[in-house]
């Protein structure tokens, strides 16, 4: 069985190229792969497209905003392109308002379902979310059983930068509580899935098959977060 464990974060993202698309999970500052984002920052690749629920927070910890501030990102696809509070002027908000980067605003459930479509080989899907709003303008509408839906397309990516709680060396993953959020669907939607692991990377067989959240066939690389790594 292939051993997918990499010795460090830098080697696990070394083949990321300019212009690629990456997915970064996390919700409420939980479940982000901060160490892998830091490695992408060190790598210095540019013109990236980022897919994430939001585009960085106000604190100093490494997140998508770190790559945006370093001008490595040309476009964000996310559910927040303006702050929920006027005081939260992140680097992203400033640069987006100054037309220094592009953004696509997607309702959060549609964002998640577009990832799942990419993960599940679905060509497109109809959702009721956003019908009757500015965001549905220009999209194909269809009435099904008396309800109106809009057509949405899958959202794939070159890389997913994942945070898991536990893994085995084959890449079977487990998450803890709300750390799960976007992690499973991003891990399954991307071409190359890289995972930083909090607790332990165990031998195959040690994780009960009934308790695997993401099967290892979706996972390409694993790195154990060291004691002094970047935690939530």
């Amino acid at each position, binding site marked *: 069985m292939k051993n997918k464990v990499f010795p460090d974060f830098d080697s696990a993202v070394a083949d990321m190229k300019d212009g690629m698309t990456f997915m970064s999970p996390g*919700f*409420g*500052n*939980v*479940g982000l792969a901060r160490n892998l984002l830091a490695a992408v920052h060190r790598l210095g690749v540019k013109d990236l497209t980022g897919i994430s*629920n939001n585009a960085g927070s106000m604190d100093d910890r490494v997140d998508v905003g770190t790559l945006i501030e370093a001008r490595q990102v040309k476009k964000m696809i996310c*559910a*927040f*392109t*303006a*702050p*929920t509070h006027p005081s939260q002027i992140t680097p992203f*908000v400033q640069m*987006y*308002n100054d037309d220094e980067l592009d*953004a696509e*605003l*997607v*309702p*959060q*459930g*549609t964002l*998640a*379902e577009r*990832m*799942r479509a990419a993960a599940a080989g679905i060509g497109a899907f109809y*959702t*009721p*979310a*956003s*019908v*009757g*709003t*500015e*965001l549905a303008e220009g999209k194909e509408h269809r009435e099904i059983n008396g309800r109106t839906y809009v057509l949405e397309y899958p959202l794939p990516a070159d890389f997913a930068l994942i945070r898991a*709680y536990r893994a085995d060396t084959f890449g079977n993953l487990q998450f*803890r*509580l*709300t*750390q*799960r*959020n*976007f*992690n*499973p*669907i991003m891990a399954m939607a991307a071409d190359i899935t890289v995972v930083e692991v909090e607790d332990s990377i165990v031998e195959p067989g040690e994780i009960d098959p009934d308790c695997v*959240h993401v099967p290892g066939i979706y996972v390409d690389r694993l790195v154990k977060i060291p004691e002094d790594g970047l*935690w*939530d």
Partner: protein
Amino acid sequence: MTTADKPRLSRQTMCDRLAMEFQDGWIVNLGVGMPTLCSNYLESEPDKEIIFHSENGVIGFGPLAPAGEEDRHLVNAGGQNVVALPGMAIVHHADSFGIIRKGMVDVTVMGAYEVSENGDFANWRIPVRKGGGIGGAMDLAGCAKRVFIAMEHNQRNGAPRVLKQCSLPITAPGVVKLLATDLGLFEITEDGFVLREHAPGWSPEDIQEQTEAELIIADDLREIRVRPA
């Protein structure tokens, strides 16, 4: 004292009034900010079992975690640490919104910038800035069984937020069922925009003065209740 300066309802009272409508067994999704105050009310009705759903995939979480007892892996939609209740379950983000789109959420309570008399509301975009903060609001507003809004009745400059038609881009059309403001409780019905309960000291005429939407005065108009009848 001019009408506009009369005492108004507190945010907690507004949210208490909405939470009073929650029924035993309901699945409830509270928006970030003011709506989270709804959960405080439920302490006064311990026999009511409410299942709180959060868009990040938690079903059945408890109150905010006391200091020192936080689990760093367990947060609500606002990123606040909450405690696990027996029977809690976790799903990933796509399944969490599957729950929403299927219509399993009995009520979502949200804040808003504007509400119109036909039940449209706006809460994701202000004109001075590019982009918006949608989060899960459009999915919830379009698919929850009921949408309740908690919102201050007027802007800081005194301009009304309860309008004939929203001036801002809407979050969903015609979905608001119940609106609590600091002036009273309003229901959007087939007949129109009904004032059901008023803040103490506020007459229907006083409230209409602060409202662009045309108010229908309920036959059984009363002062706002904050405890079940």
